[in-house]
């Protein structure tokens, strides 16, 4: 027997879901401010560009056709959106919120479709500003009132189809993982992510670096999701195919309809799978979660070691950080997602450079330090989960706790960064002095990142539940923490690397012949690193204070 009014109930769940999201945002003023700033910056920059393009397009008399690169861009964006939503499913939406209530109140179809509505409404929340901007630009450029309807329709179909496909892939994976021990454990999940990274990397390389490709850029004219471009520009002077536009709508609706059906089936099978066979956070089965590590933290992280001289409390925190990562490497998923996005972006830059190897040491000197800090200390309070009250009331001092968070990054992240940056700078077309500069920047930026991460993570923690005591499982750092941390590390790193590589003419102009260019460059790099170290020291102290004064909500 089917549930009557299931669609209405699903929409109800979606509305409640998005209302909860809005309330969550309003309760987080930092994130709200960041979103506001991003929106304003985006509107100003893209709006400005859009107006310029619109003015240009208005002056054109010749018919405009949709270039292949636009289709490629839309297709790539859609794939990226699918990836993004699949990650959200794996991280936040494996099971319905308030599961026991939802699943004993409505059918699994309602619960699954309700999740999709929640995600769609939430996406709409963030898509409104760019869509309004796009409608404005298209409308202004072509004086086309029909764009008021068709552009939002195209954006809506684009988002909804990406959500549904992302959820389908995630639930298919979860369904298989729940029945396979190899995939159920977190290492298995990380391997799947890594394989995806390699595949995406290869695809990007084939497109951008003229490697033997299985398609041409024009092939993207035949990817259904790129047909939404035809839909968006219908009624404007841009030459669009009505057939493709209609097929894009039909295809989108078909993908959404059939995908929702598959999501419902897979979600039902996954939700009603034995909860004891895999843990809710995708951990290992109960029997195999038994530790064979000898019962000590030191044995648990072997062959890695944390030296005694750091002091026992600090050593224990550091060991716990490493053990947590080893037992639940899914914590690194958020980094993998960022690395994929960044990798695609860097791939584009790489193929456009005359000396592509020049990019390698820059990436090493910036990315490895960022990773070393983000991997270990970007959500220290959330990582403690339900143990946090015990940690806060233990006799460990703030400094000991923060040092414990920093030690793994310094002990393992620092040498890896230095080594990789050294190798990267050798393959690059740089002089010995610049090579040394890269190594020093990489090393010191690691210290800065490792010192900064705990402070940012404590300022913007994320727990799996409102009440800390109920927090459990793997909790990725908050988006605010990731953005703030990345901004600070990125600005300091990019600034210092720029100081190292800036053309001599800039220094000559600034120095005005008073100081030599070499001295000017040296002092700029040292100043950049000095500022970074001051920031790191201040962050370290702030984090220690924050830990000591932290009170539970």
């Amino acid at each position, binding site marked *: *027997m089917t549930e009557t009014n299931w669609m209405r109930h699903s929409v109800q769940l979606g509305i409640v879901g998005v209302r909860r999201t809005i309330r969550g945002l309003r309760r987080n003023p930092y994130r709200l401010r960041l979103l506001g700033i991003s929106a304003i910056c985006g509107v100003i920059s893209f709006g400005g560009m859009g107006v310029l393009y619109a003015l240009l397009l208005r002056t054109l008399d010749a018919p405009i056709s949709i270039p292949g690169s636009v289709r490629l861009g839309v297709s790539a964006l859609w794939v990226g959106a699918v990836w993004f939503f699949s990650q959200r499913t794996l991280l936040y939406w494996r099971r319905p919120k*308030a599961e026991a209530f939802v*699943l*004993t109140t409505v059918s699994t179809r309602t619960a699954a479709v309700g999740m999709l509505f929640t995600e769609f409404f939430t996406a709409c929340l963030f898509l409104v500003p760019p869509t309004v901007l796009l409608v404005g630009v298209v409308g202004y450029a072509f004086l086309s009132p029909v764009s008021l309807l068709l552009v939002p329709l195209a954006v809506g179909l684009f988002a909804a189809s990406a959500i549904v496909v992302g959820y389908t892939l995630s639930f298919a994976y979860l369904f298989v993982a729940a029945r396979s021990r190899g995939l159920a454990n977190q290492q298995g999940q990380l391997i799947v992510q890594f394989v995806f990274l390699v595949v995406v990397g290869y695809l990007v390389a084939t497109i951008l670096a003229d490697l033997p490709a299985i398609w041409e850029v024009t092939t993207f004219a035949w990817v259904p999701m790129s047909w939404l471009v035809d839909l968006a520009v219908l009624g404007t002077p841009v030459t669009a195919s009505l057939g493709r536009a209609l097929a894009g709508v039909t295809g989108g609706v078909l993908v959404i309809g059939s995908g929702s059906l598959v999501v419902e089936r897979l979600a039902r099978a996954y939700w009603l799978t034995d909860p*004891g*066979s895999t843990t809710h956070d995708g951990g290992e*089965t*109960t029997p195999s979660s038994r530790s064979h590590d000898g019962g000590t933290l030191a044995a648990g992280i072997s062959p890695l070691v944390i030296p005694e001289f750091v002091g026992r409390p600090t050593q224990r925190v550091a060991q716990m950080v490493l053990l947590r990562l080893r037992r639940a490497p899914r914590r690194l998923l958020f980094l993998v997602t960022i690395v994929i996005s960044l990798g695609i972006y860097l791939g584009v830059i790489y193929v456009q450079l005359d000396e592509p190897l020049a990019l390698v040491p820059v990436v090493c000197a910036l990315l490895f330090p960022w990773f070393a800090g983000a991997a270990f200390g970007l959500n220290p309070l959330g990582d403690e989960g339900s143990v946090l009250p015990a940690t806060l009331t233990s006799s460990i001092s703030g400094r000991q706790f923060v040092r414990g968070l920093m030690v793994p990054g310094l002990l393992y992240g620092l040498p890896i960064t230095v080594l990789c940056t050294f190798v990267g700078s050798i393959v690059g077309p740089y002089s010995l002095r610049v090579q040394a500069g890269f190594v020093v920047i990489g090393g010191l930026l690691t210290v800065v990142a490792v010192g900064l991460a705990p402070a940012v993570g404590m300022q913007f923690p994320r727990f799996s*539940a*409102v009440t800390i005591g109920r927090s459990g499982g793997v909790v990725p750092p908050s988006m605010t923490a990731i953005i703030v941390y990345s901004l600070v590390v990125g600005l300091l790193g990019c600034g210092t690397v720029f100081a190292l590589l800036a053309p001599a003419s800039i220094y000559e102009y600034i120095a005005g012949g008073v100081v030599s260019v070499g001295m000017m460059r040296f002092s700029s790099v040292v100043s950049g690193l000095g500022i970074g170290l001051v920031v790191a020291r201040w962050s370290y102290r702030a984090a220690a204070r924050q830990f000591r004064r932290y009170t539970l909500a």
Partner: protein
Amino acid sequence: MSVIQATDLTKRYGDTIALDELTLSIPAGVVYGYLGPNGAGKTTTMRILTTLTQPTSGTASINGTPITDRTTVTRQIGYLPESPPLYYNLTASEQLDLAAGLRDLPEEQATARIESLLDRLDLREDADTRISDYSKGMRQKTAFIQAILHEPAVVFLDEPTAGLDPRAARTLREMIVELADEGTTVFLSTHILPVVEEVADTVGVLYEGQLVAEGTPTELTHRAETGGNQTLEEAFLNLTSDESDSVEADEHD
């Protein structure tokens, strides 16, 4: 007629047997106290009977509907798990309004019932406060209202009085008895034995996935090995100790 009927319910997690051929038959309008030590299989039983988990083998029905028919079964049950299933950034009013909406309860009737239950459980004044700001007991009471809002035929309650102050706990016990008087079957799992002793008509004791004893609280205390004026707690400890296995085995011999 049995409202809850389970026959040879078995649930395995890998090599572990959580439920071992459990057979239950619970008539309408009774409070069934479900006791057992940690890990005995109480929550698994509840998850199976509420359709949240599928049994490895065996069958079960609620009010004559097999648990495989989720849609029909979920209309007839209310479930309060140990951890209250609430959206913390909604207010209690909003949460209950959502629950009523999802169950298609007529609006006026739902509003009246929500208000009366909020009054009864002293939540009226805080109904427009976010659940995240509630105490554990207030959340428990909200989740209890949510479970009985639609006047289900069967209510499954997992530790419903946990975290409640004595006054609220008493109100809840009274409400459980009232529910049963009105014909609702209450399946009550708790470790607080005096609660079971006070409200339960029948008690089932689960041990290592098997129902090792069933009867009224008085019957159970009399059936305990040492006889005399036992409490339910002593009977429970007796029934769920390893020695009871050997005693039973000796009796069979």
